[in-house]
């Protein structure tokens, strides 16, 4: 079905008839405004003042509010200006009062400072007097001090005997060991000297061993006192006789043999000379 046919059918839609009493009911319900009321309404609508009274009333009220607000705002501004001026005046007077009070306070501070300085001066003077008195007593104190030292020295107990001094014993033992070392170095130097000399005889003195010793100034003396030289017992001894004593320490009784060894001789040992060479015997 096309749209034209549809429109045609829609326009042919049937109309249902109204109920019989509806028209009378509608006619009886007619409630038209009366002519007098309409006339009054016209008259009322013509009254310009009555129509505009609400708007005018609101306008007057609004205008009044605006005026009141304006007056109040100007009054507030005036009061603010006055308050600002009075605040400025108060600040000015306060600054004047502060300036007037500043001078006395400064002088008072200065006086206080001077008083303090005076008190310090008096205290320092007293200190000087006290120190002077102490200085006058200084020689007397020095004399007392010397006497006390002497007294103290007199009261000091005697030290232990060398035989009983443990530290002295240990020190002596250490020196003896160092002495053994020196003799060992000397014997080895002598053998090297003999080798360099292409002979089997050792040197006749220790001076010729200096080039072979690193610290000849120390090696040639016993460390106990540093001044006692070692004694060459068998100068020019042959290397073929290893038991011959070549050098000796007279302090520690240590001996160095031709073979390079070193012995610490006890009291039971003694040295014996045979054919210009020295040997150890018991």
């Amino acid at each position, binding site marked *: *079905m*096309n*749209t034209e*046919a*549809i*429109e045609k*059918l*829609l*326009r*042919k*839609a*049937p*109309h*249902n*008839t*109204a*109920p019989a009493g*509806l*028209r009378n*009911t*509608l*006619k009886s*319900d*007619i*409630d*038209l*405004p*009366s*002519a007098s009321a*309409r006339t009054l*309404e016209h008259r009322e609508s013509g009254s310009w003042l009555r129509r505009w009274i609400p708007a005018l009333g609101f306008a007057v009220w609004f205008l009044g509010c605006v005026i009141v607000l304006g007056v109040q705002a100007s009054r507030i501004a005036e009061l603010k200006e006055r308050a600002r001026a009075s605040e400025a005046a108060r600040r000015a007077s306060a600054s004047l009062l502060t300036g007037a009070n500043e001078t006395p306070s400064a002088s008072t501070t200065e006086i206080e400072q001077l008083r303090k300085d005076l008190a310090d001066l008096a205290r320092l003077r007293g200190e000087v007097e006290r120190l002077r008195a102490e200085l006058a007593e200084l020689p007397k104190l020095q004399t007392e001090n010397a006497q006390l030292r002497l007294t103290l020295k007199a009261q000091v107990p005697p030290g232990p005997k060398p035989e009983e001094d443990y530290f002295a014993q240990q020190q002596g033992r250490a020196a003896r060991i160092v002495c053994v070392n020196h003799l060992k170095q000397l014997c080895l130097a002598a053998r090297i000297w003999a080798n360099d000399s292409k002979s089997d005889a050792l040197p006749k003195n220790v001076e010729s061993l200096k080039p072979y010793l690193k610290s000849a100034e120390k090696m040639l003396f016993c460390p106990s006192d540093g001044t006692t030289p070692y004694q060459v017992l068998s100068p020019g001894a042959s290397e073929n006789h290893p038991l011959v004593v070549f050098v000796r320490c007279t302090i520690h009784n240590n001996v160095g043999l031709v073979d390079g060894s070193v012995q610490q001789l006890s009291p039971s040992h003694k040295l014996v000379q045979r054919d210009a060479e020295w040997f150890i015997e018991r």
Partner: protein
Amino acid sequence: MSDDVKNLVERAKSGDRSAASQLITEFYERIFAYFRRRCGNDEDAADLTQKTFCKVWTSLKNYDQRSSFNTWLHSIAHHVYVDWRRVNHRLDPQSDEWWDACIADEPGPFENAAEGEAAHQLYRAVEQLNDEQRDIVHLHYYQSLSIQETADALSIATSTVKCRLRNALTALQGRLTEPKLHV
């Protein structure tokens, strides 16, 4: 608007009850038919017709005749119907028996039984349109208002009326060409 109706309106404005009676005689059947189609029963249609004319008499002093009285009357009727629907929250489409009765009462417009059957289906399809399209169809086709009058009655633009009419016709055409599920 014809001069007679204008005259009657002016006289009714001035309080002439006979003129108001003549206006009722002229228009009450169309208004009743409008409500009858939209409400689905005679009682509601009669009540709404009464309400409509009551509003007409109350608002007659404000009628400035910028549109025709018929348009203004249909505008009031449409608003009365909308208020009624809003209060009752219902939409009662016409029953098939009602359309049968209408067609049987007035066999004249349809040329044959086939056309009557097609009209029957078409009127039922109209009730299945949405509210906007249905308002347009009722006022423009059933109440025979022009495009401009329909637009004035519904307070919408004429272009809107045309658009909705086109959509309504397209929708109706689509519904009528659908295969029938129930025979």
